């Protein structure tokens, strides 16, 4: 069984992710200890919450450097989910401007929608895949996933965008840059297609 570290930085929904990893045959380890992070084969950064609280917690737990090292230097397979993907950006614009991990060039900003659409963007929505990627192996060209967001990642480079979703405007739903993967939606909460995404991640 593959060891999957689910980072505990006090930002909710941990056991949902761990339960899903376990269900698809992984061995989830919920931890924020540097030793565990260094030994993990796979790292998942989940997240339900605000950008600034997410960063505050990562900083207070002393996790920023070790995460960056594991992702960039050690090139460990990494999956950021929802806030976990957003925190990879250089900066976030939720409740002011906050510096992110800076692993992905780009920023996080509020979804731009007209007054007919409600925020947060909550529910099941279609994701359209633009290019091939190991994370979406065996999925259809378009699948429905569960979203819970008011903010979205705006990467500088379009080449890392694997899938988009539309809510008023198109926004980034899936990214991949070498060993770094990210989904704006919650695969652990998206039943079959979501569980398949997690399964594919463990085969990277």
């Amino acid at each position, binding site marked *: 069984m593959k060891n999957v570290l689910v980072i505990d930085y006090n930002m909710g929904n941990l056991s949902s992710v761990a339960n899903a990893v376990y269900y698809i045959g992984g061995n989830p380890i919920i931890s924020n200890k540097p030793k565990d992070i260094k030994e993990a084969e796979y790292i998942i950064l989940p997240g339900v919450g605000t950008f600034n609280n997410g960063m505050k917690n990562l900083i207070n737990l002393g996790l920023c450097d070790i995460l960056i090292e594991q992702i960039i230097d050690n090139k460990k397979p990494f999956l950021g989910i929802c806030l976990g993907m957003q925190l990879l950006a250089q900066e976030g614009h939720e409740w002011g401007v906050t510096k992110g991990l800076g692993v992905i060039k780009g920023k996080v900003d509020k979804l731009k929608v007209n007054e007919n659409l409600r925020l*947060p963007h909550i529910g099941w929505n279609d994701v359209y895949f633009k290019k091939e990627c190991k994370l979406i192996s065996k999925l259809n060209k378009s699948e429905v996933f569960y979203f819970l967001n008011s903010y979205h990642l705006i990467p500088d480079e379009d080449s890392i965008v694997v899938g988009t979703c539309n809510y008023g405007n198109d926004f980034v739903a899936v990214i991949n840059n070498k060993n770094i993967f990210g989904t704006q939606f919650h695969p652990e909460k998206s039943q079959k297609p979501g569980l398949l995404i997690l399964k594919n991640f463990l085969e990277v």
Partner: protein
Amino acid sequence: MLKVRLIPCLFLMNGLLVRSEKFNLHQNLGNPIHQLERYNDWYVDELIYIDISRKGDYDFGRYDTKVKIKTNILDILSEISKKCFVPLTFGGRIRTIEDIRERLKRGADKITINTIAIDKPEFIKEAAETFGSQCIVVSIDVKINEEGVYEVYKEFGTKPTGMYPIDWAKKVEELGAGEIFLNSIDRDGTGDGYDINLIRMISESVRIPVIACGGVGKFEDFVDGVKLGKASAVAAGNIFNFTEISTINAKKLMRDNEIEVRI
């Protein structure tokens, strides 16, 4: 396109599933895990669990044996969340930030608060700032009072608040609630259909999603809830508890009525 959500709502009392009518308890329906297994097969979009217990003890033992295993609500939540691969909203008796944190840690994806929000509105703001608006659902229970006017009630529908639902809905939105879970106390468990006036009134007064609940007796009620009530999500408790009616059939009817659903 964003789909309209169909959400079974389950009420837990002392660890067991119950059905309610007009917010008074009627029947014990048994083990919540058993029910969950049905829903996993049925393409539900989310699940809402509300703990409506009024005591401290929780019995999670089998109804038909003499052995009762007392477990606390967090353990029950952990059990439920192990097999739940759709978003799980958990509520009931939440009073502090730590209560919320514990539930999110144990498997809830969203939480819902009601009485504490009314007693301490700034708690909504604090919760939204700590955890993000998207996981804070404020439940609003509404009854038509003696003057024939809609009024918000708290504490399991027992205490009037003197507040008009539109005013409270706008206030909770302003304070950072991510969604509103709107319940009609009068319609609860009756099967007489949603209170469409109430739902529409609230849906049109806020920009955050509104989840309608209370009164569903047939699938056509879901269609009305969306098309006439303008709800973003339609929830029901009892209709999914008793019969072989499945959520797939409900969604088929919604789709036939041109409502975008996940099917």
